[in-house]
């Protein structure tokens, strides 16, 4: 006898209540207890938020004395701004260019591959397009660890949704899951600016989700420090009726122009396409080579050549 447990999206306490109630119901029939014990060993640690909710633990309040909760204050000259400054210090500027747009044949997703720490380029080969599942892609802008971890976590939640509901999760649902998680960590220093692109029953879907808790549905987005440059090229060249090749070339060109002007973007421009059968990686081009293919070197016209002075 299988027990259907609603999966993630339901809060931890509700799950515990349900599992406790099913336990008591089935306890009446002997012989099933051994299987129930296995089920009761469910691990809820994945559901627990690792960050404290409103600061301060309850143990301090319940020790009998009505002492006000207290903690060691950090040694700093400016306490009020301390937390804000420490979050700002950790918060990396979103030095990247990622873009995605919906067109007739699906969703085109493209990104650069440079990782920078201030003025130092730490890597030219970062994978900024994250494969959540075979029909959904996420882009990375902001903190690499934050994006990778939370996209992986989203992939897990999407898979659990599929198993629980016997159908794929929609792009709307997946983006809402991620947005709710990021909203709950709001103000704690996460830096995530991501786009969730996918193809579900309603066709192509594109959502922008960020660590401030914002979530926008749209047809064209670009995120990162190079995004204004990419928007310029994207907006002027965009048509809904494009072939896959045309759209890929538009995406590649937009990334190239952003990497040309923005110091924090560079490396290779990768382009992915999400269609009705899932995503495919279309191309990976070094932006330096793209530059010379778009603007080949021409011999400079010299107006006047300096000649040797004739020595009498």
């Amino acid at each position: 006898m299988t027990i259907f447990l609603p999966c993630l999206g339901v809060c931890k306490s509700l799950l515990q209540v349900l599992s406790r109630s099913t336990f008591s119901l089935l306890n009446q029939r002997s012989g099933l207890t051994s299987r129930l014990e296995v089920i009761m060993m469910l691990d809820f640690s994945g559901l627990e938020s690792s960050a404290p909710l409103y600061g301060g633990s309850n143990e301090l309040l319940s020790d009998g004395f009505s002492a006000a909760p207290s903690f060691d204050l950090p040694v700093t000259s400016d306490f009020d701004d301390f937390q804000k400054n420490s979050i700002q210090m950790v918060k990396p500027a979103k030095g990247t260019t990622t873009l995605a747009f919906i067109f007739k044949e699906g969703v085109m997703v493209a990104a650069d591959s440079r990782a920078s720490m201030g003025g130092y380029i730490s890597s030219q080969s970062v994978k900024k397009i994250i494969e959540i599942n075979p029909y959904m892609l996420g882009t990375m802008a902001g903190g690499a660890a934050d994006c990778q971890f939370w996209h992986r976590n989203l992939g897990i939640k999407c898979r659990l949704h599929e198993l629980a509901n016997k159908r794929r999760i929609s792009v709307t649902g997946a983006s809402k899951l991620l947005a709710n998680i990021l909203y709950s960590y709001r103000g704690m220093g996460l830096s995530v600016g991501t786009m969730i692109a996918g193809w579900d029953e309603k066709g192509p879907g594109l959502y922008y989700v960020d660590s401030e808790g914002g979530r926008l549905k749209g047809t064209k987005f670009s995120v990162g420090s190079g995004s204004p440059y990419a928007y310029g090229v994207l907006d002027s060249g965009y048509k809904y009726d494009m072939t896959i090749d045309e759209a890929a070339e538009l995406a590649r060109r937009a990334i190239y122009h952003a990497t040309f002007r923005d110091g924090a973007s560079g490396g290779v421009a990768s382009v992915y396409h999400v269609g009705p059968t899932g995503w495919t990686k279309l191309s990976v081009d070094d932006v330096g080579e793209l530059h010379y293919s778009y603007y080949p070197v021409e011999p400079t016209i010299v107006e006047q050549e300096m000649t040797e002075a004739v020595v009498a």
Partner: protein
Amino acid sequence: MECVFGMVGKGFALVVADTSAVNSILVHKSNEDKIMVLDSHKLMGASGEAGDRAQFTEYVQKNVALYQYRNGIPLTTKAAANFMRGELATALRKNPYMVNIVLAGFDRDTGPSLYFIDYIATLHKVDKAAFGYGSYFALSMMDRHYHQDMTVDEAIRLAEQCIEEIRSRLVVAPQNFVIKIVDEDGAREHSWRRTTRD
């Protein structure tokens, strides 16, 4: 740069909001609907931080619907406004929602009403209200030209005047606006005022 304003007329209430979704200097989209239809006869125009706006307005909408399912009758506009204010006030000293709301509603017995709800849980029942940088222009326009019992056409004309003033005087004016109206026939979208197509 977000502008939300509203006014009460004869048998209706109007809410106007800009439709830009902005991130520092970038406009991500210019057709973001910020006036939520709370239930059949209530409109809630919200402005503020992106995540807070969506989360808080959806939370209020679901709770208003829940009340109706549980009790069989919908909340009055006054009750919905006080519920919202209560939620904002409770969260204020822990985890404040940075959202400003203009709530417009129509009740069968009391007619149209407009409520001004601040991010620090101020609540006022008003005839005209405005939030955002646009309020600097819209409030004085409305003070000058508003009068009791305006018709729909007069109110729309006043709203257009406010939008024109915001467009011409605000340094980073939003491109498009949406106007929604609520009267005894219900809450619905009235029209858009666009300068750009998305």
